């Protein structure tokens, strides 16, 4: 009896519930590179920039490091890294045989003194930043169990004296390469396999129509030449169809077509403008802008055009919807009561609208990263219109492009094929 009572009493420990811990970036040290210095420094520089932009890691100041300069990839004195506050440690050792760079990249858990990741990455010397992007994606995948986007590319419109051209660049804005000439080219959209970019162009001299360009060969061919104008192509997640808007007899509607531009079919038939269709990640629903209630608002409908539902009720000018890859949010730009366009998200389930930008110029044309962790947009803050990046809660806003005249209409390319 006494033993039973003792057992019952011992189980009655006081319980304290703790929640609401501060969410902070993971303290990460990137040790000085080993091996060939110029390659190591270049790779680490690109890696540091990737990690800084990610918002996931807090990179520690190398000036504070206490590790011995002779410390290699093994025999690490973890206490010295713990002393500077590191929880993770990255070490790099690069070699440069011939025209390529080969790097041994490692990630360590400082608290437990164990190696977490270890890989050898090779790239041509001219593209050695790709080594950093590949290792960076592996690190992000290790921590978050979600794919990283450091190897992805973006497309946007570069403004030039001669017009507007479509440009492809790395996700961080590096290595921009023109895809088109400089007539008036707008609204690029990637195919899901990353091989094609559809865009709106005035190149045929007959108004705006939709063309596609092969990303590798730069070959351009017409996709939709129907109506007074056709614009805003967006590929379906399966890549077999694309949405666009076309104006026929002064009535602008959302259409769907086969990937080769054939079999175009109208999805909306309301009076007034229906435009800017975008797919849900499962391809079953479409978000679009409609003026059917008097002001431009975001609506959704089934992929066959049925079951139309109004999603936004706040503001009197909401446009440019972009459905998140996770499916829960739609980003859009809306004009507030001061007649300034800013970025917002609306929750698909609840209709709750959250503001992402404010008092920082005009902010428009949101485009999601394929992992849903970031949004590209164009912004006039800083004077010129450039491409910026934000996290979906509005934090960690950073400039991506620094074009001489300006940049707009960003589109984020797909994830690279998995190995």
């Amino acid at each position, binding site marked *: *009896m006494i033993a039973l*009572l003792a057992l*019952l009493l*011992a189980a009655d*420990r*006081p*319980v*304290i*519930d*703790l*929640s*609401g*811990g*501060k*969410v*902070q*970036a*993971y303290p990460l040290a990137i040790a000085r590179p080993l091996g060939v210095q110029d390659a190591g420094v270049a790779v680490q520089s690109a890696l540091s920039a990737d990690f800084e932009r990610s*918002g*996931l*890691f807090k990179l520690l100041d190398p000036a504070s490091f206490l590790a011995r300069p002779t410390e290699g990839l093994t025999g690490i004195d973890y206490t010295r890294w713990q002393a500077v506050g590191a*929880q993770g440690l990255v070490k790099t050792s690069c070699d440069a045989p011939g025209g390529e760079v080969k790097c041994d990249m490692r990630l360590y*858990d400082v*608290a*437990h003194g164990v190696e977490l990741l270890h890989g050898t990455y090779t790239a041509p010397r001219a593209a050695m930043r790709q080594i950093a992007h590949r290792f960076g994606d592996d690190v992000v995948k290790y*921590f*978050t*169990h*979600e794919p990283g986007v450091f190897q992805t590319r973006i497309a946007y419109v570069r403004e030039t004296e001669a017009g507007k051209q479509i440009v492809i660049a790395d996700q961080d804005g590096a290595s921009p390469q023109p895809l088109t000439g400089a007539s008036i080219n707008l609204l690029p959209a990637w195919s899901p396999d990353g091989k094609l970019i559809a865009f709106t162009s005035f190149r045929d001299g007959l108004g705006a129509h939709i063309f596609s360009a092969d990303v590798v060969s730069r070959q351009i061919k017409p996709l939709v030449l129907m109506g007074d104008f056709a614009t805003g192509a967006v590929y379906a997640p399966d890549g077999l169809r694309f949405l666009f808007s076309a104006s026929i007899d002064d009535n602008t509607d959302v259409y769907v077509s086969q990937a080769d531009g054939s079999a175009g079919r109208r999805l909306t038939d309301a009076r007034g403008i229906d435009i800017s269709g975008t797919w849900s990640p499962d391809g079953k629903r479409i978000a679009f802008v409609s003026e059917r209630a008097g002001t431009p608002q975001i609506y959704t409908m089934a992929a066959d055009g049925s079951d139309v539902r109004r999603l936004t*009720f*706040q*503001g*009197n000018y909401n446009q440019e919807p972009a459905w998140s890859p996770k499916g829960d949010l739609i980003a859009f730009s*809306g*004009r*507030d*009561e*001061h*007649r*300034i366009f*800013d970025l*917002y998200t609306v929750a698909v389930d609840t209709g709750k*609208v*959250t*503001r992402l*930008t*404010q*008092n*920082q*110029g*005009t902010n428009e044309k949101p485009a999601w990263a394929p992992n849903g962790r970031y949004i590209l947009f164009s912004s*006039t*803050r*800083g*004077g010129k*219109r450039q491409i910026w990046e934000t996290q979906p809660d*509005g934090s960690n*806003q950073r*400039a991506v492009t620094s074009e001489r005249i300006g940049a707009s209409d960003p589109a984020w390319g797909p994830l690279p094929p998995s190995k």
Partner: protein
Amino acid sequence: MSESLPPKSVLALEARTPLTPGLVLAVALHVVVFGGALILPRFFDRAPPLRKPIIAKLVALGKPRDPHLLPRKESAPPVAAAAPVSIPSSKPSSAPAVRKREPTRQELMQRALARAAGKTEPRTEEPDPERAGSSTGSAQGTAATAEEGDAYFTAVHDAILENYVVPSVISERERLYLSASVVAFIGPGGQILKHELQKKSGNAFFDQALELAIQRTKLPPPPPEIAKSLRDTGVVLNFKP
């Protein structure tokens, strides 16, 4: 040989039923009653409902916002890299329709001092002298009185929360369902003698963050009435992100 027996005292006990069965019955009944009182509630009482925190935001003084307008951010965004220059545009001017009165130099100075002191605006109201609580209570506390030990557990909660950092590398989705329990044994001086990860979360970085929080926490000495229990039995810390 006959021996005369002394007369029986009136106080002498009569030969009656033996005591043993009655005693056994009484003891058994006591055991049943007390045992039942201790054990039966564990079978019939429903587990107390989980205490969910109610997070309330203080409503700012001002006019209600028109629900048809797009929302404003609650906190001001960071300053742009450079001041935007006006770009010729067909869009209407961004100037608000009604201009606010410019604050005086004195008001600006007061605001700056308030910001330096960690306040957004200078407080003009005195704290409510009628508010019931404890001088050792938590600023976030809501109870007016405390049970024995509650004040100390509040201090433990606040001290650990101060060091409780969730790494941002844990995805938002994973944060929704992560939870872990740690049993901490606290010495008479407030030192954490040892801690045991009773229930792992399944995410090594979250578990590591909890251990770091406990290692970094300095606790005050527990009150004498619960010191032995905290040293021998410990306290359960249930963590959620």
